């Protein structure tokens, strides 16, 4: 059996999950969660479950980071809006936030 491979992958998953919990800022957490998704996909492949691994890759590599980052962007914009923007300097920041 491929015991060393399974052990290595399990350790990677454990380390990635611990890192994801230890990082507190949502943006940095999204980056670590992306790597955690990769480790999980490899674990599923090594345990001979490629369908689950494919699901993990499809969802975790692009969709989950996108949803997280959009939510962070929305919450950030709401906070900036309620504190109020004043004068011309505020307009510049607002324009930058509005785009993209």
């Amino acid at each position, binding site marked *: 059996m491929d015991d060393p491979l399974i052990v290595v992958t399990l350790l990677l998953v454990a380390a990635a999950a611990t890192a994801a919990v230890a990082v507190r800022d949502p943006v940095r957490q999204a980056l670590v969660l992306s790597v955690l998704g990769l480790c999980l996909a490899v674990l599923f492949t090594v345990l001979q479950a490629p369908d689950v691994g494919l*699901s993990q890759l499809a969802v975790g590599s*692009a969709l989950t980071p996108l949803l997280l980052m959009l939510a962070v962007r929305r919450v950030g914009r709401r906070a900036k809006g*309620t504190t*109020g*923007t004043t004068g011309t300097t505020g307009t510049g920041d*607002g324009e930058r936030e*509005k785009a*993209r």
Partner: protein
Amino acid sequence: MTRRVRLLVLALGGAGLAALLVAACLDLPGFGRARHPYGTRAVHASLARHTANTIAAVNFDQRAFDTLGEMTILFASVLGTVVLLRQSRDEKRAAPEAERVAAPVRRYALLVLPVAVVTGLYIVAHGQLSPGGGFQGGVVAATALHLLYLGADYRALTRVRPVGAFEIGDALATCSYLVLGLACLLAGAAFLANTPLPYGTFDTLASGGTVPLLNAAVGMEVACAVVVLLAHFLDQAVEIEEEGSRSG
């Protein structure tokens, strides 16, 4: 309860749970053995119906009713998201500005987008042959469409993606799964039973009876649902803003 007492209770509970888990793990059958009572029966039934991918056979043939429930869960959660994230009275919609994108990134996005959509459709179509199926292929295709936003422009994405059409597509695909199940019922067998269609030749695209059709229904449903979900998230993050913020 003081903090120390709470931590002590947590430690005791955790230790008990750890002991039980270790005892259970030591008593499990060995991993990766050749014989398993459920496994042998599932593989036998899958091969009898000429479906090469046993997972697809379990999902869309032996346990097709559970997949109907999972598809409905996704549909209901997207419905809830649409309700929650719709533009409310105290919000206004502002046109997003264009963001400058470097030329190589833009070219890469426009070249890879069709390749990725075709790959998603390929994974849906080959669900009964190789790892994949409706869910995985649908997510890949829907995510690929958003390369337009990531590599080019948000307004390009809104032109290509009429949200109303995708919402209708989502509902239609869910209904088509139900209609396929009812068709099996009308053909004289049980709901979602894999009997009316011929099983075809093993390891070809036309094999497995109703499995490829149910795969296609789930693929369309998941792709439309993900597009609608991302559309509302993008709306909130890019277009909609609070009425009180004077930023323009």
